[in-house]
């Protein structure tokens, strides 16, 4: 069954620290397991990956350049943890089976200096051995894969990939060999004609031809592909079991996605399969030899300890006076170097495995050399001692009882020196420590010898003799340093590889340390930036709040504007509607401007000028003088800055609309027909009135006189066209001209009309008094009547204005003088009433607004005055009797 994928997103700094701690704890756990020797290669591989991941993480954090607060302490802590790994190994070392510390304790070597020194060496040894042990695990794996390869015919690298793929899908890696063997048996059986196998092959659609020439892994892939295509789960399981045996069902998870899993495993393992392909056989051989050699070494160590314990006791007592500080410094240097090597190992695990492979080879060969050299040296010492006087010198001074002990002492001191120096020097990277130990122990040996002899009460001479003989023996003794196994060359090679790893680790460590200050600075910068960001965020909030308030105010103001617009639209009765908002107007303008073509632009400019001309007055001047759009816009008070010609012409159009619309037009509907009819009626009535006047006048005289008076009175002839229709046309023209332009009125139409009507009625409601002198008038009227009688054809009358009144006076006199002789029946009141009625019916006023009364009144007054004048001119022509 597939496992559940779990991803944790988040957790902040604490989580990061916790994760690092987890990784470090994993490292510690690994360390313990390494000590216990029960770490498998798989676990080693996983751990190496975790280490690389951790190290990669830190690099990534550095590369990110954020240097966030807290990063630098973490890096520091990580470095510290790496350095402290050796320290942790101290406890673990005590649990080790073959640790030098345990050997020392078991041997009762309890000197403080030794303990410190042993522990220090052990720390480094443990760290190195941890990796060496993993090399051992690699050898074990190589051996295992080599054996499996022999069993299955598959390469070690492919087997390793298969094992990983099996493990990834929850199948035991141990199943690889058995599954492959069962598959191979199945194929052999099928090839030999096994019914069940052939049937199964047939059902899967696989032929032997498809399988031949392929590696076992590829063959498994062919089977997997066919099995996975079976839709029915039961049939699928049955097919898997028929090929891979009873455990075939367990393989279904990997068979379902065989190629994908194989690719995934390859990615995970990187170059390791290649290494195993090349070296599995060698690993196998080395592993076998190692097992045998380990036993030999153990035998040697046990034998040595058993016989060396007494000597070691004395030896370690002497070590109390040794300069431990210098030794400690040297070992600390080595520990740091070991840490560098470990860091370098994290950088390149594969190279490290290879390097430790070499070191293991060195260790084996060197141990072999040491074993044989030590044995040879001891034997040689014993032989040579027989050639000197050492034994007799000791015997002569100390007594025979001590001879054996002294020899034993000398032998084991030598052995101890050699064993320790060899053991330490042979450890990878511990040559310097071994050499240093050798020097110290050599000095201790001399002191010890002196002390032993002195303590025994010997004389200086005897002691000197013993020492002399001892040295003589030692000088004769050949210290064997033969390179029986070619360790020197391997050591050189190993040192080069180790140096490369150490250099890599040192560089990484120094980079870590160097990065601390820059990380700290960056962290500080980030911290400041964070503070700034916080301040900025607060400011932003404030601004945001203010902006919000402003926005609310603007919205409110806009709303108010719209309300005012609406109110104004209602009050002014303009073209604005309640629905039309400012935004709408702007949008309309933008749309109109957007859609306006250059052709439209010209048309609109021409139209605007024409509209202005039509308005007359100042606007006409503006329309006439404007030469271009900006000029026209400026003349109309429109802002031109930053506006396009189209925008301006649009605004000009709007302005003209406003200008032409804002004054309220008085739509006075003037009806020329009615007016003409009215005046015609007036003329007819007047004619009729004149015809009704009974004329019985002796008018010849009067007329002659009148003619004379008239010729005097009217020096400048005044043409009178009494054809009423033409006069009416003139009057109409005059009225039209007067009313051509809209006249603003501020009064309601009804009241204006009523007022006009009232004035007209008022002016016409009273009888116009006519008074003429009787005698002159009689004569004049008589003459006039006579003249009128002679008016067959129109007669031009010329009257001198200045003397007209005199003439009228004479007529009046004449009329007065006529007395009762003349009867004039003039129905003046009726005539006047008729005129008034005609006037009323001839003029139709339609006043739709409140303003303009005074203007029209004035015009009406003028009109009435004109009529009155005309009537006045007719009046003198009326018969005298009409004035009675």
């Amino acid at each position, binding site marked *: 069954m597939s496992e559940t994928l779990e991803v944790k997103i988040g957790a902040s700094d604490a989580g990061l620290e916790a994760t690092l701690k987890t990784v470090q704890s994993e490292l510690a756990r690994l360390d313990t397991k390494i000590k216990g020797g029960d770490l498998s290669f798989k676990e080693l591989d996983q751990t190496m990956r975790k280490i690389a991941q951790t190290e990669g993480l830190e690099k990534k954090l550095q590369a990110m350049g954020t240097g966030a607060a807290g990063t630098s302490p973490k890096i520091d802590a990580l470095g510290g943890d790496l350095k402290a790994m050796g320290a942790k190994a101290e406890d673990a070392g005590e649990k080790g089976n073959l640790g030098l510390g345990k050997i020392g304790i078991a041997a009762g070597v309890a000197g403080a200096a030794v303990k410190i020194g042993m522990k220090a060496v052990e720390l480094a040894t443990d760290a190195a051995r941890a990796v060496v042990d993993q090399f051992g695990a690699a050898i074990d794996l190589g051996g295992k894969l080599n054996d499996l390869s022999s069993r299955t015919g598959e390469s070690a690298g492919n087997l390793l990939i298969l094992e990983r793929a099996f493990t990834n899908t929850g199948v035991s890696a141990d199943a690889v060999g058995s599954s492959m063997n069962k598959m191979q048996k199945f194929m052999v059986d099928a090839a030999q004609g096994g019914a069940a196998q052939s049937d199964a092959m047939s059902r899967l659609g696989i032929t032997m031809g498809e399988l031949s020439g392929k590696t076992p892994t590829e063959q498994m892939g062919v089977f997997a592909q066919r099995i996975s295509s079976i839709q029915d789960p039961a049939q699928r399981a049955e097919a898997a079991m028929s090929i891979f045996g009873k455990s075939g069902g367990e393989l279904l998870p990997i068979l*379902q996605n065989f190629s994908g899993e194989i690719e995934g495993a390859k990615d995970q393992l990187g170059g390791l399969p290649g290494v195993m392909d090349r070296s599995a056989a060698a690993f196998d051989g080395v592993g076998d030899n190692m097992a045998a050699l380990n036993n030999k070494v153990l035998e040697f160590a046990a034998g040595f300890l058993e016989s060396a314990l007494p000597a070691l006791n004395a030896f370690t007592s002497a070590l109390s006076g040794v300069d431990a500080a210098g030794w400690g410094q040297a070992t600390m240097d080595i520990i740091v170097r070991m840490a560098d090597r470990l860091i370098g190992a994290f950088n390149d695990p594969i190279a490290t495995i290879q390097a430790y492979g070499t070191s293991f080879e060195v260790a084996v060969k060197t141990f072999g050399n040491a074993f044989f050299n030590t044995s040879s040296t001891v034997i040689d010492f014993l032989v040579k001692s027989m050639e000197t006087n050492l034994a007799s010198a000791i015997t002569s001074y100390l007594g025979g009882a001590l001879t054996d002990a002294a020899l034993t002492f000398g032998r084991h001191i030598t052995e101890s020196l050699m064993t320790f120096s060899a053991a330490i020097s042979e450890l990878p990277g511990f040559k310097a420590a071994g050499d240093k130990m050798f020097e110290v122990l050599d000095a201790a040996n001399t002191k010890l010898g002196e002390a032993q002899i002195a303590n025994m009460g010997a004389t200086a001479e005897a002691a000197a003799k013993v020492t002399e003989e001892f040295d003589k023996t030692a000088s004769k003794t050949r210290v064997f340093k033969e390179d029986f196994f070619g360790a020197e060359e391997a050591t050189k090679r190993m040192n080069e590889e180790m140096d490369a790893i150490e250099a890599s680790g040192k560089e990484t460590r120094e980079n870590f340390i160097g990065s601390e200050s820059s990380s700290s600075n960056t962290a500080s910068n980030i911290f400041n930036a964070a503070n700034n960001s916080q301040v900025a965020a607060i400011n932003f909030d404030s601004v945001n709040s203010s902006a919000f308030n402003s926005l609310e105010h603007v919205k409110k103001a806009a709303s108010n504007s719209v309300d005012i617009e609406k109110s104004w639209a209602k009050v002014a009765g303009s073209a604005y509607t309640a629905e039309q908002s400012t935004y709408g107007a702007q949008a309309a303008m933008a749309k109109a401007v957007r859609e306006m073509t250059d052709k439209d632009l010209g048309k609109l400019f021409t139209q605007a000028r024409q509209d202005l001309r039509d308005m007359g007055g100042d606007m006409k001047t503006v329309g006439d003088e404007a030469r271009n759009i900006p000029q026209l816009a400026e003349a109309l008070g429109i802002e031109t800055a930053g506006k396009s010609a189209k925008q301006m012409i649009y605004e000009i159009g709007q302005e003209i609309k406003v200008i032409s619309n804002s004054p309220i037009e008085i739509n006075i509907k003037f009806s020329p027909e009615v007016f003409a009819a009215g005046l015609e009626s007036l003329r007819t009535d007047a004619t009729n009135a004149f015809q009704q006047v009974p004329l019985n006048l002796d008018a010849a005289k009067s007329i002659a006189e009148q003619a004379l008076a008239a010729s005097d009175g009217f020096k400048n002839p005044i043409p009178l066209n009494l054809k009423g229709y033409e006069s009416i046309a003139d009057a109409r023209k005059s009225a039209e001209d007067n009313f051509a332009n809209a006249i603003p009125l501020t009064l309601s139409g009804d009241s204006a009309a009523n007022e006009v009507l009232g004035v007209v009625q008022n002016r016409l409601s009273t009888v116009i008094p006519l008074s003429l002198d009787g005698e002159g008038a009689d004569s004049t009227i008589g003459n006039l009547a006579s003249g009128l009688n002679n008016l067959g054809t129109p007669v031009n009358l010329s009257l001198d204005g200045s003397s007209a009144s005199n003439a009228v006076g004479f007529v009046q006199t004449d009329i007065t003088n006529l007395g009762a002789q003349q009867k004039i029946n003039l129905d003046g009141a009726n005539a006047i009433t008729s005129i008034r009625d005609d006037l009323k019916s001839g003029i139709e006023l339609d006043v739709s607004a409140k303003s303009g009364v005074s203007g029209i009144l004035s015009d009406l007054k003028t009109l009435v005055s004109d009529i009155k004048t005309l009537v006045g001119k007719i009046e003198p022509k009326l018969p005298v009797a009409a004035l009675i």
Partner: protein
Amino acid sequence: MSVANLGLMRAFDEIAKAAGVTYKEVVRSEAAKILEAASRNTLAAQVQLIEKNVKAAPRRKLNGKLYKMSWKMPDAVWAMAQAQIAASIKRRKASRGLAKKSWIQVAQSIGISVSAPGYVESATTKNGDYPGDGKATEESNGSDFAIVLRNSRTYSPSVFDAIRKAMNGREKFFRENLKLGVFKSIETIAARYPGLYTK
């Protein structure tokens, strides 16, 4: 198995500080983006291949008997086989996108809204919708906050790569933004990380 991207955690911290929002808001916002990308990265069956594979099956069990499709068969059986093929294709098409949907279910379980194509949202099994594939839980500890995403549909291999790629992609996105100076102003942060300011 677990997927970890510690650089992303570091990024969350920085985003929270720069954007002036809580760590939790960052984690939830980024989780939404990661899940959306994971859903996008997860592979879905191709319609063409579904049809091709179903039709390519050499044998079919009809009325309890196994028939080779290469055989000549009675019309009634042939019709039955065709109906079975059509039903199989229909069922497989209906379940197409379930792996992608598992990430959507993860997001939905903690109230995060993630967009996905219609066929993913409507993907279902023959027994109905199965939301158990994806779940998430939120964990808080003081100011720390984490979302644990669990996806049981790991037998779809691309699920692993999808979430890993999504997380790495998000971290890369952060690093690029850092390089571009996005975190210098709230406006640019809001432009690149709109989810931080969307409630």
